[in-house]
Each structure stands twice: as structure tokens, then as C-alpha cells.
């Protein structure tokens, strides 16, 4: 037993409890100490993660939890993204009755996502799934308005349904293998009956695809992106993906692909995800809904790396892609959070003249999401595409390149008005939102920096995992 092995996770939990308590005792107009505690907990968790990453990789708690490269990456990425969400949420949540609860939910959601990434046992995976999901339902409905209720309900219904299929998959795999830890699964599943194993893998996949916001578990994403408050939407579309996709790679690597060709299955899901997400984003007039569908498409690109998981550079590419995506996506949502009254694409017209910095951040983030060098997503796409081509799925790379072309059109539908001089479609009523706009500029700068400094970062990222 090594209680310190989970220090980063425990700090998140402790932070959540302290934030909740502090928030309950503070007057409504002075809740900032609660937010500060939450931020400190995230920073502490980040620091603990960095310290642990320097140590040896190992399995803890009877081989149920992996403290290895992918977990370290999630432990760094998730708090970073959560910190950015806290920063961009300041103006929206300040003075709200449930201000502290927002921070608590962010901390709990982050905890769930990190646990998902580290789980190396089916039962831990199931628990992490639940822990990662419940805060999200609450977060989606945090504003307690009609749209928020719809977002929460959709997320909840889909999450509950696919959670059940995940449990079904866990049961089936346990029944087939007689073990729940991934090392045991790997050893025992070699001779498992193909049909039963396939059903189990598909059921398991469904739950994790819900977390990743990927097709076919994506129906909640656009509604959550528009219905939830913008900061909550930023969190919902970023943080769960990190945990969900790493968990997916981990669990699939425990299933021998000689028995069930899960690679083809994931490749098909990736194709469907990017195509559907991109096509659906075309017609959107609401920038948030457009971003929602864009995240579905982005999950499709990340899934390409999962499809070739275990082969050279695939895991490294996935982790880098997640980092790049998280930064860029949070940046794009931060722009939307800074301009809350511009709810249509046409309302962004003429933004460049009045808000040059915010516009520059928007341009960097949207072009980044397309995959323009030298932003981080470009390097992410490059490594993922190369690994996929190398892994024998060249056709998937062609599909992804075509989808990138398609995605260009809708990102530009948002960016072009912002860069065009002229009056906006509807006159925005704007107050300065320095926290949100600073977050946007910071995230945009970070995505360029990560892209330029991709060499050392890629060198640090692991290409294998423990079992």
C-alpha cells in the first residue's frame, strides 16, 4: 500500500470538499476564497503529478491502477484545462448563488477524468466512469434555466444508458476472462469465444465513447455546448475526453486484436465521428453549437490514434493530440465566454476592429483546430496521421485529410465575419470580461508555444503503458 501514489487525485478530492465547505460559510458576494481554494487544489494536484512523474512508473493497489506515462499526462492536462475553465468562468459565475458549487463540480469532474485515465481494472473503470459522469450532469444544468435543464437531461439520459452498457461490457469481459485487471484480461482473453467477446467490447466501447463525446455517444454534446453555460460547456467538451480516450486505449490494448478486430471497429467509429461531426457543423449558426459538433469531429481524429494503439508512436500521438486539443478548444470557448451576447456567427462581424486581441485569439484557436502550423493541433494531427499511416490504416488518413478540408469551411464561417470590417448582425451589449478574454489570449499563445516547442514535449511523452 502506498497512499501517496494517489496524491494528485487525493488533492483534487480534498480541494472539492474544502471548496464546498468554504463556499457554504461565505456570503454570496464574497465567494472568491472558495474559488481560490479550488485553484490551489488544482495547482497542488498538478505539482504533485509533476513530482510523481519524475519517479518510476508502477502499478498500485493490487494492479488496479497504473501510475505510468499516460496517467501522468492526464494528471497534468486535466488540472491545466480545469484551471483555464475556472479562469474563463469568473465573470459568468461571480455573485451567483451556486458559485462555489461550480468550482466543486469542476474539481470532481477532473478527479473522475484522471481516475478514468489511470484505471487498469474493469471495476475501477466502472467506478471512475460514474465519478466522472455525475458532476457533468450537474454542471450541464448548473444555470438552472430551461436550456440548462435540457442539456443536463440529455447528458444524463445518454450517460445513464451508455453507463449501463459499460457495466454490461464489464460483466461480460469478467465472465469471459475470470479476472478484472487488465493484465489478467490480456492473458485470459486469447482463447475467449469471439462473438461474446465482441459484444463485450462493443458494450464497453459505447460507455467510453460517451465520455469521449464521440459518435455514437455524441448526442449530448451539441446540446450541452449550447444549453449549458459557456464555461461548463468548455469543461464538458474538453476534460472528459482526456480521461475517456486514454481509458479507451488502455482497455482495448487488454483485448487481443487477433480474436476481435477492434482496430477496424475503432477506425470505423473514428470515420463516422469526424464525418458526422464535420457535416453537422456546416449548417450551424450558433458558434457554440458549431464548436460542439467540432469537438465530435475532433474526437474522431483522436480515435485514429486509438485504432493503431500499441503500435509505434500511436500513444504518444494520442497524448499530444489531447494536450493540443484541450488547449485550443478551451481557447475557442474562452472567446465565446468573453463575448456572451454574440450568439450568432453574423454577430461576430467587425470584431477585429474593436477587439483585436480577442479576434487574434479566435483566429489562432480556430485555425489551430483546423490544424494550421505552427499551432499544437497541427503537430498533433501530424503525429497521429503519421502513426495511423504507419500502423497500416492509410485509408483512414485520407478520410481524415478530407474531413480536415471539410472542417475548414465551417471554422471559416465563424472566422471570416470576425475578420471582415462592418457592423455586426445584431448589436452586442458588451461589458469587458477581462478574465475570459485573457484566458482566450493565453490559451491561444499556449497552443502556438506548444506547437513550436513540440519537439521536447513529444520527447517527454510516453509511448507505452503499464498493465
Amino acid at each position, binding site marked *: 500500500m502506498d497512499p501517496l501514489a494517489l496524491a494528485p487525485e487525493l488533492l483534487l478530492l480534498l480541494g472539492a470538499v474544502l471548496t464546498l465547505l468554504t463556499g457554504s460559510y461565505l456570503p454570496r458576494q464574497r465567494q472568491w476564497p472558495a474559488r481560490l481554494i479550488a485553484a490551489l487544489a488544482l495547482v497542488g494536484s498538478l505539482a504533485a503529478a509533476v513530482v510523481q512523474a519524475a519517479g518510476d512508473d508502477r502499478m498500485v493497489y493490487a494492479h488496479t491502477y497504473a501510475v505510468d506515462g499516460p496517467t501522468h499526462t492526464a494528471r497534468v492536462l486535466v488540472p491545466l484545462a480545469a484551471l483555464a475553465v475556472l479562469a474563463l468562468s469568473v465573470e459568468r459565475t461571480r455573485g451567483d448563488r451556486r458559485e462555489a458549487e461550480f468550482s466543486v463540480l469542476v474539481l470532481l469532474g477532473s478527479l473522475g477524468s484522471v481516475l478514468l485515465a489511470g484505471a487498469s481494472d474493469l471495476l475501477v473503470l466502472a467506478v471512475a466512469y460514474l465519478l466522472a459522469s455525475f458532476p457533468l450532469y450537474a454542471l450541464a444544468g448548473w444555470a438552472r434555466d430551461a436550456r440548462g435543464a435540457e442539456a443536463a437531461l440529455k447528458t444524463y439520459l445518454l450517460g445513464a444508458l451508455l453507463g449501463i452498457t459499460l457495466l454490461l461490457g464489464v460483466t461480460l469481459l469478467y465472465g469471459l476472462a475470470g479476472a478484472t485487471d487488465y493484465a489478467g484480461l490480456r492473458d485470459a482473453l486469447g482463447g475467449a469465444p469471439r462473438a461474446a467477446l465482441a459484444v463485450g467490447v462493443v458494450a464497453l466501447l459505447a460507455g467510453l465513447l460517451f465520455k469521449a463525446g464521440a459518435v455514437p455517444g455524441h448526442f449530448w454534446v451539441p446540446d450541452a455546448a449550447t444549453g449549458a453555460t459557456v464555461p461548463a460547456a468548455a469543461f464538458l467538451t474538453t476534460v472528459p475526453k482526456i480521461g475517456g480516450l486514454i481509458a479507451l486505449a488502455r482497455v482495448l490494448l487488454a483485448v487481443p486484436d487477433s480474436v476481435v478486430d477492434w482496430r477496424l471497429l475503432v477506425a470505423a467509429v473514428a470515420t463516422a465521428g469526424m464525418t458526422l461531426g464535420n457535416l453537422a457543423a456546416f449548417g450551424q449558426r450558433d458558434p457554440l453549437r458549431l464548436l460542439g459538433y467540432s469537438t465530435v469531429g475532433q474526437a474522431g481524429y483522436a480515435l485514429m490514434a486509438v485504432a493503431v494503439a500499441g503500435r509505434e508512436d500511436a500513444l504518444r500521438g494520442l497524448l499530444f493530440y489531447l494536450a493540443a486539443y484541450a488547449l485550443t478548444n478551451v481557447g475557442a470557448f474562452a472567446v465565446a465566454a468573453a463575448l456572451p451576447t454574440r450568439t450568432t456567427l453574423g454577430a461576430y462581424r467587425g470584431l477585429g476592429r474593436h477587439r483585436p486581441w480577442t479576434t487574434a485569439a479566435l483566429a489562432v484557436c480556430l485555425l489551430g483546430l483546423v490544424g494550421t502550423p505552427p499551432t499544437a493541433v497541427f503537430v498533433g494531427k501530424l503525429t497521429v496521421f*503519421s502513426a495511423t*499511416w504507419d500502423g497500416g490504416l492509410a485509408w483512414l488518413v485520407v478520410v481524415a*485529410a478530407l474531413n480536415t478540408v471539410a472542417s475548414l469551411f465551417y471554422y*471559416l464561417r465563424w472566422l*471570416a465575419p470576425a475578420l471582415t470590417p462592418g457592423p455586426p448582425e445584431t448589436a452586442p451589449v458588451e461589458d469587458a470580461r477581462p478574465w475570459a478574454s485573457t484566458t482566450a489570449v493565453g490559451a491561444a499563445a499556449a497552443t502556438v508555444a506548444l506547437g513550436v516547442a513540440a*519537439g521536447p514535449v513529444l520527447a517527454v511523452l510516453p509511448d507505452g503503458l503499464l498493465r
Partner: protein
Amino acid sequence: MLSLTVFAPLVAAALLLAARRLPDRVVVWAWVVVAAGEFALTVALWVTYDGEGIGHETDRPWIPGAGAAYHVGVDGLSLPLLALTAVVFLMCAVHTLRREGERDVRRFAALFLALETTCLGLFAALDLILFFLFFDLSIVGMYLVIAGWGHGARAARSALRFFLYTFVGSLALLLGFIGLYAASSPHTFDLVELTADPPLRGEGAGGALVLLAVCVGLAVKTPTFPFHTWLPPAHTDAPAAGSAVLAAVLLKMGTYGFVRIAMPVLPDAWRTYALVVVVVGVVSVLYGALVALAQTGFKRMVAYTSVNHMGYILLALGAAGMLGGGDTGTRTVAVSGAVAQMVSHGLITGALFLLSGVLWDRAGTYAMDAFGGLAGPAPRFAALTALAAFASLGLPGFSGFVAEFQIFAGSLGPAPVPTALALLGILVTAGLFLRALHRVFLGPPGSATAPVHDLRPAETWSVVPLLALSVAVGLAPRWLLDTVEPAARRVVELVSR
């Protein structure tokens, strides 16, 4: 020194953006000084290049995990284009000194300086990812130039069309690059290594598909028929300096990519499909010339002649890949003619676009029918435009003649029929330029003639050096060809192995 040359304009751009209180005149003069310094640096690079292989090389790991490096260097193919880039950007800076300079000059200058970095970087890049980086950023920069400073009601639309077309093309290019990376062993994006040991040799389908992806990406940028439709609106609505850079430098990125990447790295596929390249080139030549003939707007007409001129380059490069007929010497002539044509077209068309800006500045239109008799009130304008037009149609004594003569001489052996067809393009171009000169400068005054006064000094001095260089190449081509020819021979050797 090469890295300094590439990134100095970017630093200057950042400084200009940071200096909010500078008066506009100071900004433009600062821009002129930086651009002149850049020109001096490229000349120094050229003079100190020893004529063998790759000079001024820097090779540092950048993203080793992804096989990408910061690898830059120059040789006989890139030096003329680097110098051309520096000259054209300097002339754009001088052009902006005129009294009707662009609005928001500080950002305009910063944008052009940043654009200069992307252009120089592209011609110096010896790594596919670095090449792609500059390729994409040049698109973003040019988009901002057209969308932000374009004139005409449709500028934003034209800018968007330009962006979509060329960006989509760049993604095809990236796909091809990834294909090359995946096929090479050990995996690398390094151009020198890929050239030394080309992947995908002899595998029919793989090499062809990768070549297709690379060529589509480059052809959109060049542009050749049928990917040229973004070009006329982009040129028509861009500011004069933007058009000049777009035509003189950005289009060369496509043709340079053929010589630098497609031919040496995919020699087998290039030889197999050389005839396709030749046909696309000839169609571009004829189609560009005929459509230009039908234009009523002066700037749009010049834009279409770019399609025509780029077609000659493709014809020469395709012919250089056709085995049988013509020895290494002939094919070298074709390739060095193609490179000379890139330089020549950059000088001449840059001048033509800067001159056409005069029409818009004074009269707010490009319609040739609205003018007439301009030679009287604006003799210098008329003389320089006539010179540029004659240079563009390939009159001996100008660079265009040297380039096109080499192209035809080199291509005739390997591809006689296409070359003969392409010769017709020269006839049409000659006709259309004479007709345009006639309509704009001679005859009775038109409705828009009245406001046109003669060139200001800044306008004159932005055009004269370009034409002077064109004459210099035309009369004494050796200083250019001595640098180009060894590199061209090397390309021919690489493509015929």
C-alpha cells in the same frame, strides 16, 4: 545568416506592432529600410554561395518525435527566388510611400514583413514540415492582406475563396508529405535525405498517389488549369502591393515545389506521368492566354496571363521528365528556363500589378474601356506599362525572352507537339497586350481618363528597378544562369535516375 535573413522581417513586424505611436511616414520608411536590408542580405547570401550543393545550411532538431527538423539551406534553385522575394517586397514598401498609401499603415507594413518571412522561409526550407509551415502561413497572411486592405465590395469574398482553395490544396500537399514520411525508412521529413534515397521507387500505385497529392497541392497554388479559378478575383480585389506579392512570390511557391520536391523525391512517378504535366502546362498556357484576351479589366487580364506564364514552367518541367528525345543537356536547358521564368515572371508581373494599382488609385476602376488616351496626361505611366507589357510578352532584350526561349528550346526535343502548341500562347499574349495598350493609352480619352495624372516618384521608383532587373537578365543572363544551371542539371540527373 540565412536564419537571420528569414526571421529578421518577422522581428521587425513584431516591433512595428508594438510601437503604437509611430507616425505613418516613419512606419513606411522603417519598412523600406528593413526591406532594403533584407535585399542586401539575400545578395550577400548569393555572393558568398560557393556554387556547389547546399550552402548556408542549418540543421537543428525541431520535433524529432515527428521526424521534423529546422533544416534550411540555399542552392541555385532557391537563391534567385530568395533575391526575387526580397526585391519584390522592397518595391512594395517603396510603393506604399506614395501619397494615397494604404490605411492603417502600421499593421499593413507588419503584415507584409511577416509575409516576407514566410516567403523567404519557404524558399530556404529543406524539410517538408518547415516547407508546409511557411506554405500555410503565407496563405493566412495573404488572406489578411486581401480581406483587410482589398478594395471592391467583394474583397472579403475573394479573400475567402483564395483561402479555401489554397488551404485545401495545402492539405493535399500535407497528405502527400505524410505519405512520403511513412514510406521512407528511417522515417523522415528531411528533403535532403528523401532526395538522396527516394521512397516509393517502383511501386506503381503508392508513388502515383503520393505524387498526385503533392501535385494537386502545388498546382492549386501555382495555379494551373483547372485549379486557377481563385486567382482572378483574388488579384482583382487585392491592394496593388498585395497583388504584386501574390503574383510575383506566392505563385512561385507552387512551381518551386515542383522543382524542389516533386521531381527529385518522386523521380519514377514524375517520369511516368510527365506527359500529364506537359498537357496540363499546355492547357494552362492556351487557356490562360485566351481567357486573358477576353478580359475587359486590366488587372484581371494580367492575372490570367499569370496562368499562361505558369503553364510554360509546367511544360518545361514535364518535358524534363520525358525520357527519349533530348539528352541531359537539353533537359537542363528546360529546367533552367523554368527557374528563369519564375524570376522573370516575378519581376515583370510584379511591375504590372504595381502599375495597375495606379488606375484604381486615380479612377477607382480597372475597366479598360473607361480609359483611353492616357499616354498624353501620363507619359511615364504609359511608357513603363508599355515596357512591362513588352517584357511580359517575351520580347528579346527582356528576361521573359531568355526564359521562354530556353523553355521552348529545351522542351522541343522531348515534347515537340505540345511545345508547338504552346508557342501559339506567345502569339495570343502578344496580341492581348498590344490590344490592352491600345485601349488604355491611345485613342480618344475615356470616361475615367480625366482624374489620371502621371506617376508619383514613389510609384515610378517601385517599378523601374523591377523592369531594370528584367532588362539586366534579358541582356546579360549569365549572372543568373550560372547559378541556376548547375542546380538545374542536378534536378535533371535526379529525375532521370
